[in-house]
Structures are given as C-alpha cells and as structure tokens.
C-alpha cells in the first residue's frame, strides 16, 4: 500500500521534473492516437453509412398474380418466415403499394389519379436480416404457385456487401497497424527516458531497492503519460470533429443520404477506447523498455 502511494507520488513528481521528456512522450503518443482517431472516426462513419445502405436493399419484393388468394399468400408468408435469414414477411396489397407510390411521387401524385384501375400487383415484402441468404429465398419464392415475378437484386446486393466488407476490413487493418506502430514509437520514447535515467536506476539498485520498487514509479509514469496523451487526443479529435459535423453534417445527409455519427456519441466511445489504450501503451512501453535494466 505504501509502495503504491510512493509510486504514485514519485510518478507525478518525476513527470513534472522531467518535463521535456514527458512532453516529448506525450506528443508522440498523442500524434499516434490522433491518426488512430481519424481512422476510428472514418471506420465508424463508414460503418454507419454501409449499415444504412444495406437497410435499403434488405427487402425482397415478391409480386403475386391477381388471382392469387390471400390464403395462399399467407401460406407463402409462413413458409418464407421459417427460412434462414428472413426477418419478417408481410402481405402488401395493391392499394398499399399505390399509397406508397403516391408518397414517393409527392407533388406529382395527382398524375396517378387519372389511372382508371390500379395497375400494381399485390405483393409480399420479405425483410432479410442476413443478405447472404437472399439468393436462396428468391429461388424458393419463384417456385411458389401464384407468383408472378421476383425481381433479383442479388448482383447489386453482392456488390454492396463486397464494398462494405472491404472498407471495414481495410479500416481494421489500418487500425491494427497503427496500434503496433504506436506501441513501438512509445516504447522507444520511454526507452529514451529510461536510458536518460539508467544511472539513476543503477544507483537505486545499489541502495538496495527491489525491482518493483524501481519499476513502480516508472510504470505509473508511463501510464500517466499515456493517460494524458489520450485525454489530449480525444479532446483535439472531438474539437475538430464537432466542427466538421457542424459544417458538413447537413450536406453529408444530402450527398450520402446518411448522417454523420453525432459528436457526443463518438466522444464517449472514443474515450472508452483511447483511455485504456493510452494507459496500456504507456504501461507496456515502460515495462518493455525497463526490462534490460533490471536483469540482475
């Protein structure tokens, strides 16, 4: 207990007295976390955008012949619902379809009034929760009696899936790479601070300090530096990101038909990731770089 208190106190004192080195370490960790943060934000936003893009293609429309009864449609619905990857299936009357049409036509909807008869077919709307199963569902639906047509959007869905998958994998690869780079950079920076105090460590050993007694303050110091760096970088990223959301948030909604992740939500998540990440980078960095000084 007293050793922990001592280590904490010493760490604060040492960070302050070795300001130059501490600031250098904080800068390099912050820089790494900043780049990491940019990719994190990118990944989160791409994730959101692809999610909402996927939403648009997760329904399969099964057009029915006019003579198909509601009963046989209901039979189809129950067998569809039992299939893998199907979230829901609902009957969609031609009147509902017309209503939907009107809404999407907006001000031009009056043109539809001239139609003597509703030309739209009754249909079943199948909502998928696993798009990879879409092809099977379409094949099966085509075999049902009373089905007029099932338009196949499979190719398009495949493409969307490939792209979102690629973007996510790329983002993860870049993030992993950056984490490795920051651990290396940090352990080198901490090594410099330890090297600068190699003599100090050897003196401590001469006076009879145990390894943990020596390591403690350095460890806490590394964690403290990591903690400060993560605070600084989260602060900077959020300041910039809030500005970006303010400036292009509305336009992004128009251009990409998806909104940006709100700043407040991102802060909490970024904080939850960066604080432990910064602290462990600092801790791992100091342990790695101290190892060779504490051999005997």
């Amino acid at each position, binding site marked *: 207990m*007293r050793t922990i208190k001592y280590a904490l106190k010493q760490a604060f004192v040492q960070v302050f007295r070795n300001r130059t080195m501490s600031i250098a370490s904080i800068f390099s960790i912050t820089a790494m976390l900043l780049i990491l943060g940019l990719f994190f934000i990118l990944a989160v936003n791409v994730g959101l955008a692809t999610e909402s893009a996927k939403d648009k293609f997760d329904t399969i429309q099964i057009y029915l012949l006019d003579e198909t009864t509601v009963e046989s449609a209901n039979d189809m619905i129950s067998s569809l619902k039992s299939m893998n990857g199907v979230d829901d299936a609902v009957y969609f009357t031609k009147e509902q379809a017309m209503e939907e049409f009107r809404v999407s036509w907006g001000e031009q909807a009056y043109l539809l009034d001239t139609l003597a008869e509703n030309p739209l077919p009754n249909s079943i709307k199948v909502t998928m929760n696993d798009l990879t199963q879409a092809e099977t569902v379409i094949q099966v639906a085509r075999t049902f009696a009373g089905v007029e047509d099932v338009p196949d959007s499979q190719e398009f869905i495949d493409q969307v899936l490939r792209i979102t998958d690629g973007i996510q994998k790329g983002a993860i690869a870049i993030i992993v790479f950056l984490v490795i780079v920051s651990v290396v950079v940090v352990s080198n920076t901490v090594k410099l601070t330890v090297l600068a105090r190699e003599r*100090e460590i050897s003196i401590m050993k001469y006076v009879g300090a145990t390894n943990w007694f020596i390591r403690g303050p350095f460890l806490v110091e590394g964690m403290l530096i990591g903690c400060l760096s993560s605070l600084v970088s989260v602060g900077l990223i959020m300041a910039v990101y809030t500005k970006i959301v303010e400036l292009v948030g509305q336009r992004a909604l128009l251009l990409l038909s998806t909104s940006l992740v709100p700043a407040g939500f991102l802060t909490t998540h970024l904080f939850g990731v960066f604080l432990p990440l910064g602290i462990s980078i600092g801790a791992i960095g100091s342990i790695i770089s101290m190892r060779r000084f504490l051999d005997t």
Partner: protein
Amino acid sequence: MIEFIDVTKKYGDNIGLEHANIKINKGDFVFLVGPSGAGKSTFIKLILREIQADSGKILVDGMDVTKISNRQVPELRRTCGMVFQDFRLLPKKTVFENVAFAMEMVKFSQRTIRRQVPQILSMMGISSKADKYPDELSAGEQQRVAIARAVINNPKVLIADEPTGNLDPDTAWEIMKLLEMINRRGTTIVMVTHAKDIVDRMNKRVVTIEKGHIVGDVTEGAYVIHENY
C-alpha cells in the same frame, strides 16, 4: 560480520581474487589498500553480490552471499550502506529526498522519515542544504549526503569505495572524521582507498590486496606495498 572463506573469482584467465580468507569483525574499521586492478573492487563487488564467486563462501551478517537468490540481493544491500568516490546521488531528487529514498525503500512511515532525515542531515552538518539538488552542492557536501543516505537505515556495514578520491585534503579529512564517528556508533566500516596519508593518520586495521591475493593484514598499521610479492 564479513567473512571470506577460500574465495576465488576469475575473469577468464585474469585473477580477480584467489583463495582469499579474511574475517572482519563487528565494529572494525578496515582500510583495503593495494594498487589499481589488484582485486579491491572484486572484493567489494563480491560482498554486494554484484558478481558471483567461482568458489568459496562469503558470509555477510550471517548470510551466505554466494547462496542467496536474486530476490534477496536488495535485502543484502540494505544491510550494507554504500559510499562511492563519485557520490552517486539521484540527480533529480533533492538532498532530503535522496536520503528519504533509502527509508522509503524499507517502508518507513512518512512521519518517521520527516523526523529522522533532518536528524541525520544535521549530524552530517548539511541541514541547510535539505532542499538543494546534488548539482548545487560542493563535492564535500555531496559526499556527506551520500553518507547520510548510506547510514540512515543503520546498516551493519558501511562500504566506502574511495570516498575521498574526489575531495581536497581538508574536505577528505572532514569526511574521515564523519566515518570515524559512524564507526564509533557500532557500524563496521570497510574503506577502499589509495590515500596513503589518510591511512597512516587514522591508524586502523589495514588489509593489503595485490594481484588477487591478500598479502597484508595489520591491526594498527600504515599503507604498505609489497612490491616483491
């Protein structure tokens, strides 16, 4: 207090110390003399377990140093206070903190530390320097801090490796007086030195090492070089 029984340490073909036998009793004040490279450093490094002996037995305060585990080394080093020619103070710590460091290691309470450190500093005559950093002090003052740090936990043995090597004669003599005072309080002192005048003037036990062998051991003696060995 310290006993070497047939201790040998070689560095490759070079002899560090060979078949060394010596007994240093509690309360002794021993000068360790001899030319450079004779084995004095080996002697001290063996006591502190900085290096391991090839053969033989080394007892320090009843502990067989050759047998203890690495984890017990810090404990051994606390039994022995150390003073060096180059002081080895922690440069980023104040005088007070340098001395307090040794106490914090042994987990004394802050209250005890705040009480005892000023006492020892005043005993060493450097009370007014408590808040200074080592580089703000003169060489003599730095050595006083180092001695304060070495004795604050009342070690059984104080090992001084040429403590006066960087000091002018007057300051050196003041340091010797301090060491003598510490010795009077019951601490065994082993001091490595080249300073013939100091050895002659102190008139204490003198152990001479040459080419890895203990060639002289006189209870009240002077600095002698056995060139013929």
